[in-house]
Structures are given as C-alpha cells and as structure tokens.
C-alpha cells in the first residue's frame, strides 16, 4: 500500500476546498437530523398514547369492585349484576395489551404504522380484537415515513455514489493518474486512499448523528442493552455504506468514462432499492398469496349462523344494547353460557382458515427472508427495523404474547361462567394484567445476524473483485 498516507492526506486537503463535497455532507447531516427529530416525535406520540390506554379500563374495574364490595359489606337483595363473571368478562371488561417502543425506536418507524401496537383483549375469540382499526390517512401510510432508516437505506447510497462515481475515471480523464503513479504510489493504494478519505468523514458524521439521536431521545442512557443495540446499528449502517463505497470502487475499476460509471451506479441503485424489493414482494405474494380476509368474513358469518340457527351473535348484540330485555339474573347466566357456546363454535369453525392464514404468512415470510439476500438494501432495512424493534419479528412476538395473555384472561372468566360463580370483590384483584416481555438484544442479534453476514459477504465479494481489477487497471 505504498503512498496510502500521502494520498489520503492530499485528498483531505483537496476536499476541504471542494464546495460540492461540503454541500453533500451538509445535506446529509441536515436530512439525518430532521429524520431523527421526526422519528423521535413519532415515538413520543406513540409512547404517550400507549401510557394512557389502560387508565379508563382500570377505573371501570375499580368502580365495579367497589360496587361489589359495598354489597358484600351490606348484602341486601340480589347481588349487583356486575358480580356476574359473564357480564364482566363478556360485556363490560377489556384489557389493553400495549407494545412499548423499544430502545432506538425513533431511528426506524418500520412497520409501526401498519401493525397494531396495542390490542383491546376481551374474553371473546381473538379474531374479534385482532383487527383493531388504526386511524390514519392511508395516503400518509402509502408515502411512508421520513425516518433515519429511510435516509440510510435510500438516500445515503445516492450521496455516496455522487461522491465516488468518478473517483478513478476523473483522475484518468484529467491525466493526473499517470503523474501520481509515476511517484511510485500503487494503484490500489491510490484508489483506496481516495475512497477512505471520503468514507472516513461520512462514517464519522453518521456516528455523531446517531449518538446525538440516542443521547437526546433515550431515557435510560446507562442501559447496556441500549448501547449493544447502538453498536449493532452502527455496524449495519457502516456495512451498508461500505457496500456502496465498494460498488463505486468496483465500477471505477471497470475503466469506463465517468459518465458511464454514473449511469451504471444509478442503475445499480435502482436495482437494489426499487426493482429487487418490488420483485421479491411480487414473487412472495404470488407463491404464497395471503388467504382472503373477505373469505374469512363470510366464513365467520356462516359459522355463526350454523352455530346458532337463531343467530346468537345478533341476539347477543341485541341484548347488550337492550339489557332490559334479557330478563332476570338466572336468564342472564344462561345467556352468557349461550354466548360462550357460540363463541367456541365460531372459533372451531374458522380454526382451519386461521391456521391456513398463519401457515401461509409463515411461508411467505420464509421466502422473503431468503430473498432479502438478493439486495443489500432489503437486508439493511430489515436489520435496522429489527434493531429499532419495529420489524416483523417483534410484532409477531408481541401478537404471540397477546394471544397467550388472551388465553389467561379468557380462562379466568370462562371458568367462573361455566361454574356459575359470582365474582367476590377480592377476586377483582386476581384479574390478569398484561406484562410485556421485552424482545431483548439476543432476539435482535438473532434477527440481524443473517442480514449482517449477507452485507459482509457483498462487501467482501466486491472488495476482492475490485482489488483484482485494479491490479490490471490500465493507466493510460
């Protein structure tokens, strides 16, 4: 690597006086900072919304508990109707299960705007609450978010390409190359020094902005897990940036005019960022199309009808709205048993469809997981989402936790409904609450290992390839 040091320093001096270089660097800085601020604002909003969710539910629960306690202290007449496990579990109470933002959530919005970040769990079949609606303008969801991950995955390559597409070709076109090499600098050392001079500042900038975002937005800076995530974040960002530097170096090694280099690199960006993801998506959805929600809707309806020719579901809704028509308490118990029966009949009937849903989704995810290796951009996006806890894996982990909580919650009330037991005031304290089990650094590592190795592979491949090409690069 003869001459690396002198070329590296020389480049710095040149770059210092290059206004395009500073403009690009400044733009990258401004965009990243804006994206970080925007991500932080979104994450704050979500955390704030999530924090208040169960307040109302808990108030209701305590008020009901007090009603029952008052009656227990002075038991005159019938017990209050809210002491019925059926009324509580099947009509009055529900529990919000909330997915809290993970550390570094503000760096990648990921699937947060599409996937539910909370479910309102009831004792009815899971399907009744899994479809929690979100209120948002679909046009905004379609456009996506301006977050740091977007700047990294989509824009950073453009900046890198703009800085490096003519790294070697320009020197050659200006006739500088032969002069420099005449001083005994090796070709490889020359190109690497030029690339490194640019890469150095870009990496430094990303590190600083990333650190600033962490320090300004994260509540617990002493957490080791946070810094482990940040380390991973910087590793992924560096590898991805490295990949684009290596691509530019490789294209320069092809010994084409600068303009052709630019065209090739623009096409490369297009292929990795736009074309391959779109094709991978279409391949996965064509091979394993999502089973139809529409069919699920009609099946469920059919099942409800079959489960109860008299249409228990509509009667249930009818009675909830018009409790005066239910009749006495004995009738109410009977009624809730009937609701349970209908619920479980519907559940049994749609079970095969639900399983098909799950199986197809799993297969589709497998295909996508495999095909992500076709594009460093997909790998980088997936890894960044995983690190920020906004990727597919964490959402499926969350919904699994919710489903298992739902079993608990439901069991609590169903047991009592079937035994015809009333709730004592003390038993209100035993009503299950949802504790979210953190999707920790080990899970992040597991989810990012593939993409990181994939990126590493691309980087190594390009580096080896280019170094071979530069060894045979014609100077004139």
């Amino acid at each position, binding site marked *: 690597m003869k001459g690396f040091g002198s070329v590296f320093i020389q480049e710095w001096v040149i770059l210092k006086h290059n206004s395009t270089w500073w403009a690009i660097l400044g733009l990258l800085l401004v965009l990243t900072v804006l994206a970080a601020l925007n991500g932080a*604002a*979104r994450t704050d909003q979500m955390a704030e*919304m999530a924090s208040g969710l169960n307040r*109302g539910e808990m108030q209701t629960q305590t008020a009901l508990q007090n009603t029952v306690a008052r009656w227990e202290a002075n038991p005159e007449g019938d017990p209050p109707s809210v002491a019925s496990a059926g009324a509580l579990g099947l009509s009055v109470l529900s529990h919000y299960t909330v997915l809290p933002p993970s550390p570094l959530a503000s760096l990648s919005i*990921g*699937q947060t705007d*599409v996937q539910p970040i909370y479910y309102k769990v009831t004792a009815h079949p899971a399907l009744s609450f899994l479809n929690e*609606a*979100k*209120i948002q*303008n*679909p046009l*905004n*969801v*379609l*456009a*996506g*978010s*301006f977050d740091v991950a*977007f700047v990294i995955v989509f*824009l950073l390559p*453009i900046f890198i390409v*703009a800085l490096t597409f003519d790294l070697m070709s320009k020197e050659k076109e200006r006739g500088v190359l032969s002069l420099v090499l005449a001083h005994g600098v090796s070709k490889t050392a020359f190109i690497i020094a030029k690339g490194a001079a640019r890469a150095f500042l870009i990496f430094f900038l990303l590190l600083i902005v990333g650190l600033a975002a962490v320090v300004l937005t994260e509540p617990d800076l002493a957490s080791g897990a946070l810094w482990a995530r940040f380390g991973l974040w910087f590793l992924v960002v560096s590898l991805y940036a490295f990949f684009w530097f290596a691509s530019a170096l490789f294209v320069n090694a092809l010994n084409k005019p*600068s*303009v052709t280099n*630019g*065209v090739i690199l*623009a*096409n490369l960006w*297009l292929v990795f*960022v*736009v074309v391959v*993801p*779109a*094709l*991978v*998506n*279409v391949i*996965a959805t064509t091979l394993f199309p999502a089973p*139809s*929600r*529409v*069919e*699920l*809707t*009609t099946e469920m*309806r*059919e099942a409800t*009808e079959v489960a109860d020719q008299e*249409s228990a579901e*509509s009667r249930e809704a009818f009675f909830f*709205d018009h409790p005066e028509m239910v009749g006495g308490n004995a009738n109410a118990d009977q009624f809730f048993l009937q609701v349970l029966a209908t619920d479980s009949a519907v559940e049994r009937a749609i079970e095969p469809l639900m399983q098909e*849903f799950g199986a197809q989704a799993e297969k589709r*995810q497998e295909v*996508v997981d495999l095909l*992500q290796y076709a594009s460093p*951009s*997909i790998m980088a*996006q997936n890894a960044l989402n995983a690190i920020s806890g906004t990727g*597919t894996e964490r959402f499926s982990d969350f919904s699994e936790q919710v489903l298992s909580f739902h079993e608990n919650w439901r069991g609590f009330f169903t047991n009592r409904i079937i035994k015809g037991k009333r709730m004592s005031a003390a038993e209100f304290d035993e009503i299950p609450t949802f504790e979210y089990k953190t999707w920790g650094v080990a899970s992040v590592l597991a989810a990012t290992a593939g993409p990181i190795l994939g990126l590493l592979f691309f980087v190594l491949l390009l580096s080896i390839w280019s170094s071979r090409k530069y060894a045979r690069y014609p100077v004139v």
Partner: protein
Amino acid sequence: MILTVARKEFREILRDGRIKWSAVILAVMLIAALGTAGQRYADISAERASAQEVVNMQFAAQGEKNPHAAAHYGLYAFKPVTPLSFFDTGIASYTGVSIWLEAHKQNDAEGEPARDATAIARFGELTAAFTLQMLLPLLVILLAFPAFAGEREAGTLRQLLSMQVSPVQLLFGKALGAAAALSTFIGPILLLGFIGLLMTPGGLTYVGHGIVIVAVYIIYAWIFLFLTLAVSANVRSAQAALVVMVGFWAVSSFVLPRAASDVSRLLYPTPTAVLFQANIDEAMQSGLDGVSPDTKVQQRQEQILKLYKADSVEDLPINFQGMIFDLQEKLGNEVFDKYYGELYAIFSQQTGLHQMFSVGSPRMAVQLASMELSGTSLNQHLAFTGQAETYRRKLIADMNQDITNNSNAGQADYRADSTLWASIEPFAFQPASLGTLLTRLGPSFMVMFLWLALSIAAGVLAVRKVKVTLG
C-alpha cells in the same frame, strides 16, 4: 429541420447502449406488473363479488326474526375493484376492504391487505404505475442528459449551431428524437396493456380513464425530458447534468412524498382510534347538544301521545318501540356525522398538504392523478365508505319502519319474514364518473401543466444562452 435533428438523435440513442439496461429493467417490470395485474383483478373481483352475493343471500335467508335483530345481524359491504385498480393499487393496500353494516354503529372498513403483507411491501408494490412513476423519469434522464453537454464536450455543438439550426429547433428536435426512442420501448408494452384492459370483462367502461392515464404519464415524461435538456444545456459537463437530474429525481420522487406525509401528520394530527371512539361513546351517552338521548325519547313520546291524543303508548296504532329505535339511530347518526366529518376534514387537510408538496414534485402530482383515475384514491375509498353508510342507514330505517308499522306496542315476540329481507335492495357501489374525476383532478393537472410549461420555458431559455464552449 427539427425532424432531421430528431431522426439523428433517435438513431444515436438506439445505437448507444447507455439506456439499454434501464430500458430492459423498465420493460421487465412493466410486463411483470401488467401481467400480474390482470390475474389479480380476475381473482379479487370474483372473490369480492361472490362474497357480496353470499352475504346478501345470508341476509335474505335469515328466517323469521325480529327486524331489529336482523338489523343487528346486518350486512357486509365489500369494496369492489375495477380493472384499473391493479394498474395503480394506490392506497388500496392500506384501507379495509369490507364494512359491517349493523344497527347503531358506523363501522370502519376492515381487512387492510398491508397487515397480511411482509415488511418488504413498504419498498413499493410492483404495479405498472409504480414502475412508470419511478423508472420512466430515470430512463428519460439517462436518454437526454448528454444531449447538449455531451455534444459540447465532444466539440460537435459548435458545428451543429454553425449550420442552419436555431438553438430552439435543436431543443425540440432532440426532444422529439428522445421521445420517439422512448415510445419505441414503452409504446408496445402500453398497447399490450390497453388490449389487456379491453379484453377484461368490464374493461370497456374504463377505456376513457385509461386514455387520460396514458396522457398523464406522457406529460410526466415530457416534463423530465425538457428539464433534463435544460439542465444539459446549462451545466458544464454531461456528468454534472446527470448528477443534478438524478438528484432532483431522487428528492422529488422519494423525499418529498415522505416529507409531506410527516409534515401533514404534525400540522394536522388525527386523533388516536381510542380517543376517537371515546369521543363518540361520550356523545352517544350525553347527546351532542347536552340533552341526553333518553330525554329526547321522552320528549318524542309526549309529542306522539299528544298527536294521537292517546294516554299511553299501548293505545297507539303503531309500535312506539320502532320510533324509539329510529330516533336513537338518527341521534347516533348525527354523532357519527360530526366525528367522522371532523376526521375526514383532517384527512382532507392532510391530502391538501400532499397536493401542495406536489408543486415541488411532478411525481406526487402524477401519483395523485393516477390513483384517482385508477379508482384507488382516498376520495374513492371515502366514497365507498360513505355510500355503504348511506345504505346502512336506509337498511336500519327500513327495519325500524317495519317494527313501527307492523307490530304492536310491547310485542317483543314480533317476527318479520323473508318478504322483508327480500325487499332490501342489494348494495351496489356507484363510482364517480370520469367527468367528476377530471374536475376533482383540476389542481393536479394544473401542477402538471405548470411543470410542463416551466420545463419547456427552461429548455428554451437554456438553449438560447447555450455556449459552445465553457470555461
């Protein structure tokens, strides 16, 4: 003279390999997109139509039932698709596809396809519209960036201008040549797409839409063509022209839409689903004007008793319960109108912001127009939910009317039969006419024409001042 220049430019572009790869990519993606679009339309339209039929049949076959129970059972409205919905899927992946129409409640559309999709779908779905919006400008840029700067670098610009070609003639000649080259690649594919549309059942209705869509994308290509030519005439080197135009393309196509979406969220925040529901529940309980529904029912009862000169509801010739249901329904509808009205007003402010940002981004203007014409815009989704809601209200009113007229007070065991269910007209979505869409698209068209005019003007100005050498 223009034609001579055009012919030369055309031949040169075809000979030059620089756009070969981009053209191949564009062609592959377009063909894949149009090919899958046909299949998806066939599958999904059949699925929704049959689901609608099943639901209608289920409603008709309810057997004997109290009409209010039938109102609770309700119906589903499925959002129909048009052949063009798969040319441009627009917001379709992020909106629900069916609405449960039941008593007392205005439900949201459910079953957004995006929930079932993998994260990779967020890079963009492969549709012909996505391909054209993303790749067409890039192809145009790659075609045209060396037009002047390259000639200047090669030293041929001096010769060209010393002949009897005026700079403006040169500009339009080069533009025509590039456009001809572009049409050679894309024309046949679009033609195939059109034939596909004509062969699709019901496709004939959308030929007009299709023609306007093609016009929109042609304008889009011309905008980028003249912009690139203007930049090419203005800057030092072909290389610089390429960097400037790719930069503009990236910022206007990728950054601005996202910026618009985030700024609109910040400026016009939507309530959370929980708060939205809580507001509705609260208004349902205590009444919009602070007079509770129970009080209003009481007042209505006194009115009706006075009108019929009766002492109690039992003496009335009608079932007052039906009137209570009807009154409750109307009060509920007022609440829904208020809160959904407010929500949609926020949506429309947000969409207005996208419209505003589109002044800086031809892609956004084209995208808004393209999805409107393809029937996959927010407007059309809200038209669907709106029509479904109107249908729901009529359905529930009919059920309550039946109770009022055909049963007696306190007759809880009243049952209506299939004649009532059969009297309900099935739900059928009426899409807006092409004329309505075109008027709605006024702002987008204006932005597009403004861009076109500006880019041509920029081109003309740039070539008038063009220097044969720089530096």
